């Protein structure tokens, strides 16, 4: 169980690191050309929003994963006590 868990965590972290690097820049250039027709302020704001979306999704993922881990841990504790 433990090696499986740690490789899953590592994959998630790598995915978030790549997303944090790729998403803001790509959303900046993409929205500059296709959404806002050359208005740099709006595309910079889009890039900032994309970076913060990655951050919020990371916080949500971390909170949900800890909820799952604590649920999986507690039944085994009660079996030990018996």
């Amino acid at each position, binding site marked *: 169980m433990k090696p499986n868990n740690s490789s899953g965590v590592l994959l998630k*972290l790598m995915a*978030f690191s790549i997303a944090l690097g790729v998403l803001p820049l790509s959303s900046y250039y993409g929205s500059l050309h296709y959404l806002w027709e050359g208005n*740099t302020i709006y595309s*910079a704001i889009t890039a*900032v929003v994309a970076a913060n979306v*990655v*951050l919020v999704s990371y916080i949500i993922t*971390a909170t949900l994963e*800890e909820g799952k881990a604590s649920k999986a841990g507690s039944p085994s504790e009660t079996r030990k006590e018996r």
Partner: protein
Amino acid sequence: MSQCPPFAPFFGFAGVASAMVFSTVGAAFGTSKSGIGIAGLGQFKPELIMKSLIPVVMSGIIAVYGLVVSVLIAGSLSTKYSLFAGFVHLGAGLACGFTGLAAGYAIGHVGDACVRAYVHESKIFVGMVLILIFAEVLGLYGLIIALIMNTKVAQASEFC
């Protein structure tokens, strides 16, 4: 003295460099200082590591702010470049860079202390996220000012 002296692009490039360099210094400090705390937490409760990496992700966002401002300023550099535009770009780069430095400093200290306290008390997590958000918006303020300053260049572009 002409409006477009040959040394004017120096200030523009200095703005690009300072936005990237100083915000990266702040992000590096935030990452390293909170990483020390995470290494301490990982010895006792390794299942909490994913949650305690939040200061590191926020430091990365500070560096992304500096990157966005650098890309923004570098996009409006050209050979026909007035001194006014150079000063505006330098101010924008310095605003973003130094606020990123301040934000990274705050994230580092807060991340280190709160992550170490998270070993003993799990309710500190919400407080840590709130404090980190307040520290990160410092960098966001610098980015907003850099954006506002950069629009002045677009308005006053035809000097030479």
